[in-house]
């Protein structure tokens, strides 16, 4: 799988330099991954498309793929902030909030260029 950073979302603006190494497509906020963009990516050699959308809206996407080391780091950061909720950690409100925070952490990592 190739990593593709989509900085602009029109197919003709996806540059070959944006295709670097294994990883994900990064969709900017408000962006839509259209069929034409996918076709362009495939034409550039992308074998599998995984989507990471900043601001976690895509959190339930079954195709989502985060490198394990990054996922582990993000989970650890969230667990550290919510450390005092361990007694009721299985409450749906805490689970869902931590999940949201997890994606936000991933998003922040993306914005800082750590992923």
């Amino acid at each position, binding site marked *: 799988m190739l990593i593709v950073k989509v900085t602009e979302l029109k197919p003709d603006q996806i540059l070959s330099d944006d295709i670097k190494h294994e990883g994900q497509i990064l969709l900017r906020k408000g962006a839509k991954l259209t069929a034409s963009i996918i076709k362009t990516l495939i034409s550039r050699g992308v074998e599998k498309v995984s989507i990471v959308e900043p601001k976690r809206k895509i959190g339930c996407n079954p195709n989502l793929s985060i490198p394990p080391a990054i996922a582990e780091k993000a989970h650890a950061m969230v667990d550290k902030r919510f450390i005092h909720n361990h007694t009721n950690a299985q409450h749906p409100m805490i689970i869902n*909030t931590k999940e949201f925070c997890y994606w936000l952490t991933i998003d922040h990592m993306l914005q800082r260029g750590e992923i």
Partner: protein
Amino acid sequence: MTPLETFAQNSGELLALPPIYHEIKKEMDNPQATIQSISTVISKDEQLAACLVHIANSTLYGFSSRIEDIPEALQIIGVGQMKDLALMMSIIKTFKSIQIQTVSSTEFWSHSIACALASKEVAALVHGRDMERFLVGGLLHDIGRLVMYTKLAYEVVDIVKECRNKCEPDCVVENRILGFNHADLGGLVMEKWKIPITYVEMVSYHHQPDLAPSATIETAIVHIADFFACACEFGNSGEIYVAPLVTQVCDKLNIQEKAIPELLQRIYDSGCEIIPVLLSL
């Protein structure tokens, strides 16, 4: 005398509400007041007036037609709600300039505004009405911290250290070191401001909503909103860890699990839009 009463007695004025708020409130409470006379008072502060119109046109209210000026905003949004908005904005404008060392003012107010927006969103889901009053409760929930940062700066350094060392929430450490916490102090400030008791309880019990004497639901809403605001990571009011969630109280609000992700997203989107506007005051 409790440690809090002793502190209050020895500290002089804790925080003073901005004069513009008193002027606006006085005019709005005047039975002879008209939309025009209230507008005139608000417009004395041009920046405040412009920001009020901006917020009235934001997704916070979601009106389809554009509100052009203060008289129109008063007519459409309502005098009571505008009073709350004016209170919010005058407080942000006044206290944003206070220099604190523990956390940047922008960070502090970003979190406070996020909590205000989150309170309104949670209230909309639970109540479906009177959501604007939650903006004030949410905004001021950590006002006691501001007093601590300005009047108890040395103690705050010890509190922060101990929170880190012992992995404890700050309100627990504050109670141990000071004999009271920032929520207690915030409630005291609100009482001195003669803010309605519901708001006082929202602030005083935002970490222990189960102990609120009368405004249980309102306080629970701010409690959850604070938790959500922390998760959204808009600024930081100085806490090291996200304060524990009192889930028994949350259950009483009957928020469906499937509604939570969308609720968090709405809070986040609302924060992205509104926080920069209010911080520009």
